[in-house]
């Protein structure tokens, strides 16, 4: 089965914006965000509407950077962590853009970019589209875990759902980083029903997609600057690196996890790292794409990782299912490996 899909006319990310909350502002990427509200409220009465507002600010900022109006957008592909994607609808309904809602747990960012670029490639008349992904810590805690002010101890393997949004405007500007390939991930049993260990559960799906990609493409991991996963955190990244080191030695050196970039684990009480679909969206928008635009890196694989589960399925003892869709983002005309970047 051939799984890698090449886009004949690459779809470029012409503009992007990242919005975050207080914890994100205090993190190492805080300065690179376009806007942060340290209260996490974004001027709204509830956390659900705050998440919507965050998405609205992100999309507006990205539109402003591209000097476009919402009327120029022909398709909006967006999603969040709340039931029925209300985090998205509460903030973006007033734009009046044709909309596809995506619910892929924390894989939403890659999934949205994948769907949007695929639709645009097959619709030559479509000029601009937008992808927006949001997650809000308090809205997610309320839905999936305990009340926000509940005094409990979190497991060391638990992750911190980010209050973050990323918005991307896609077009056909060849001078910008472009989505050139994608590969849809398979659902992979995470091997655990522990909701405090989502990074571990998702790592197997990430490994499956990465190994399948290199198996089919025949390329070497060193052809890429980074292989970026969404929110595996410390535990998931360690597992992924062990699997990669065993199955495709050397590949693990190119691995980077957005969940480990968003916060500083020394200074911030976030346990195993960041989670939530806003994590990979905001890190891509605030950190990775600017690096690509300035030519510091030129080619990455992005796999936003998702943990499919619900509070009910976990209480019923069902294992978490992991997914990891993949997109390849690269600068046009880039041929050789870039050796100037120091990898950690």
């Amino acid at each position, binding site marked *: 089965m051939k799984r890698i899909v090449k886009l004949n006319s690459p779809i470029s990310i012409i503009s992007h914006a990242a919005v975050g909350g207080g914890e994100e502002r205090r993190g190492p990427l805080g300065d690179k965000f376009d806007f942060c509200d340290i209260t996490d409220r974004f001027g709204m009465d509830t956390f659900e509407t705050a998440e919507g507002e965050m998405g609205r600010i992100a999309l507006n900022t990205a539109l402003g950077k591209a000097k476009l109006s919402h009327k120029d957008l022909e398709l909006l592909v967006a999603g969040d962590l709340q039931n029925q994607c209300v985090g998205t609808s509460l903030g973006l309904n007033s734009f009046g853009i044709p909309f596809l809602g995506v619910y892929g747990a924390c894989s939403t960012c890659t999934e949205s970019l994948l769907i949007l670029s695929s639709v645009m490639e097959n619709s030559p008349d479509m000029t601009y589209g937008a992808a927006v992904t949001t997650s809000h810590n308090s809205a997610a805690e309320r839905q999936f875990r305990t009340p926000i002010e509940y*005094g*409990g101890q979190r497991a060391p393997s638990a992750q911190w759902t980010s209050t973050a949004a990323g918005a991307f405007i896609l077009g056909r500007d060849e001078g910008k980083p472009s989505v050139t390939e994608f590969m849809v991930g398979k659902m992979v049993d995470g091997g*655990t029903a522990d909701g405090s260990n989502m990074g571990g559960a998702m790592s197997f799906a990430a490994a499956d997609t990465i190994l399948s990609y290199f198996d089919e493409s025949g390329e070497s991991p060193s052809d890429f600057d980074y292989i970026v996963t969404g929110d595996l955190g410390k535990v998931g990244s360690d*597992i992924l690196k062990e699997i990669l080191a065993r199955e495709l030695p050397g590949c693990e050196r190119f691995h980077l996890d957005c969940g480990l970039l968003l916060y500083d684990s020394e200074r911030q009480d976030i346990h195993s790292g960041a989670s939530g679909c806003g994590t990979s969206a905001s890190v891509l928008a605030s950190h990775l794409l600017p690096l690509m635009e300035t030519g510091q890196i030129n080619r990455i694989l992005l796999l936003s990782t998702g943990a499919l589960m619900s509070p009910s399925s976990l209480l019923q003892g069902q294992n978490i299912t992991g997914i990891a869709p993949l997109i390849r983002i690269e600068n046009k005309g880039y041929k050789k490996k870039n050796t100037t970047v120091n990898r950690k």
Partner: protein
Amino acid sequence: MDNLEKKRLIDKHSPKTKLFKNSALAFLFGGLICALGEGVFLVLTGIGAEEKTAGVLVTLIFIFAASALTGFGIFDRIAKHAGAGTLVPVTGFSNAVTSQAMDSSSEGVILGVGAKIFTVAGPVILFGISSGVLYGLIYFFAGLIF
């Protein structure tokens, strides 16, 4: 990769809960709360309250204090260090009820707060009362026999 191997990898890379540190902190914070309670009890009896009344008042004061600290967003910051030290005393129950009430307030007074206030504390209420009834029955019948 089978699930056994996945489980092995997850266990290998997941940091373990710091059992000794958590237990020591729980002991310290729990003990501190009890000592404080004893202090308040002595003050209350000292100013003339009956022992039974003073006992009830101490409980009420701690329920109120934990609820207020939850409202000000301080309780969870203490509890993440104290663990069972703040969870097991009546302070934990108070926090569970108050935090849920705060959370649900955006959904309205009746269907929000009213319907959900005991979501977290529900098991404590159900099994607390049930075991109380069971214990009472055992006590009653044992009294008839012996």
